[in-house]
């Protein structure tokens, strides 16, 4: 039953959505943007859930990933799909610079990461020969056509970002279910109790930071090749931190799929419903929705939906 649902969901995602919206590039573009936010939201939630760290600096990983991939493909001729992975690797390497912040806890860690994010933005602005400086990079290579499939368009981009998210969620879930996941969850409450039974807690947290940075970097790299343009103010914009956090909290950051559901819900609702009604200030409605969600269901949207499904299942079973 579970496999059938999974198969149907994958079929709907890979075939149904392109068939339904492939002819309307505007909607497909919005879905791709929502999934881009979803990718960062998932990586942010992974760091919070497993690493116990609240980050206000994921824009740094997004920006580093996008610039690394763009520069490698433009200046060194690295194939775009390889550059995508190297973008993630670049972001993971950038996370090494943040390791000293792992000694910090709670808001102090969050603020330190925020400061690090600004350092990378300044570097991107100042390293003009490589990054193009404040003017940015134009004509970043788009995704190629492979096996007759055109990945450079909106539908092709959708397939790529969907695959990135599915693979990221798979890795996240695998880590969460492993002994690493158990140790990481346990560390939040009592780190010293885990260390005395052999858990190298700092190494594990660093690994989660690197994994989260890698996923965010790959998503950033995807975005760079999808829109084919980059500038520091855009690539390192706080939007890449704030929107994913809002999405993760709205959807349910404690679950693997909550951040994805949250990103799709808030971005598509905002762009397709609130924006046409309130062209100026539509984000306010989003803010109210987020507040309502936090007050009424702090666990987020996905746990509510799952509870409802279970209770309906229970009613059908009794009937």
């Amino acid at each position: 039953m579970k496999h059938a649902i999974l198969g149907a969901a994958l079929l709907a995602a890979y075939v149904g959505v392109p068939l339904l919206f492939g002819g309307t590039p505007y909607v497909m573009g919005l879905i791709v943007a929502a999934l881009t936010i979803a990718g960062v939201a998932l990586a942010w939630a992974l760091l919070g859930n497993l690493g116990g760290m609240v980050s206000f600096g994921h824009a740094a990983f997004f920006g580093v990933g996008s610039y690394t991939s763009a520069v490698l493909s433009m200046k060194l001729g690295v194939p775009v799909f390889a550059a995508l992975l190297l973008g993630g690797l670049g972001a993971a390497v950038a996370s090494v610079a943040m390791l000293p912040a792992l000694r910090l806890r709670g808001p102090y860690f969050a603020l330190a990461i925020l400061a690090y994010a600004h350092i990378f933005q300044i570097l991107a602005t100042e390293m003009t020969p490589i990054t193009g400086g404040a003017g940015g990079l134009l004509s970043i290579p788009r995704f190629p056509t492979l096996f007759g499939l055109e990945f450079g368009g909106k539908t092709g981009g959708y397939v790529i970002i969907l695959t990135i998210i599915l693979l990221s969620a798979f890795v996240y879930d695998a880590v969460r279910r492993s002994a690493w996941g158990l140790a990481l969850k346990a560390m939040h409450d009592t780190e010293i109790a885990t260390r005395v039974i052999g858990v190298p807690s700092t190494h594990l947290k660093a690994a989660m930071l690197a994994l989260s940075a890698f996923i965010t970097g790959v998503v950033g790299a995807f975005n760079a090749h999808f829109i084919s343009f980059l500038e520091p103010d855009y690539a390192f914009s706080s939007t890449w931190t704030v929107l994913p956090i809002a999405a993760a909290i709205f959807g349910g950051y404690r679950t693997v799929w909550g951040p994805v559901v949250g990103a799709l819900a808030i971005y598509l609702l905002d762009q397709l419903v609130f924006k046409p009604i309130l062209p100026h200030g539509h984000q306010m409605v989003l803010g109210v929705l987020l507040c309502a969600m936090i007050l009424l269901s702090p666990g987020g949207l996905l746990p509510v939906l799952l509870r409802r499904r279970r209770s309906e299942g229970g009613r059908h079973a009794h009937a």
Partner: protein
Amino acid sequence: MLTLEGVHVNFGGVQALKSASFAVAEGESIGLVGPNGAGKTTLFNVISGVVRPSGGRLDFRGQSLLKLPEWKRARLGIGRSFQIPRPLGHCTVRENLIVAQRFGARTNDPQRIDEILDILNLRDKADSDAATELALTEHKALEVGKALATNPSLLLLDEVLAGLETTSKRAFMERLGAVRDRYKLAMVIIEHDIPTIAALCPRVLVLNFGQIIADGAPDAVFRDPEVIRSYTGETTL
């Protein structure tokens, strides 16, 4: 197996341990006693790596422990429990042991986990939430279980019998004896109950104001006037 020489610990102006020196042999059981604030838990913290000593030598099987973090000491074979139980949150009893085994012993041996659950009488609670669904005795047993799952050769038990009523205490003591015999462990046990210590340990160390004031067989140690004075302020009991 474990040697301490001139170990001292300062917390600001307070000397929590003053030149502590003793050795633990393979398979030996030692009782560590002393009044509250004597430095017993600090000594465990130093051996397990939770506290860095201000000076002295600390070797385990010929290797200096001084620069090793807690998790590396656990992997060398030093297991410990905490006085106030610290179950791993969001985990079942079995998962607590799995984490300890995978990281501390770096093995995956479900049979040994079951064996530990049985020996500590935790089998019925294996799938219970460790943080919220255990009674005090079970919490204490889980503390011992986590340490055991790391496959230690030296077990440091910090007041695992404290707070238990007489029947539970007796049963727990029997379990500790079984653990020691089954796994051929060296043990250092902090405990205030003198008959318990005398029954479990052929050797007793007494700490007072951070200093080891007696080291020997329980009968001799508990008749030592300095030991009596440290507990009662008098020279006779």
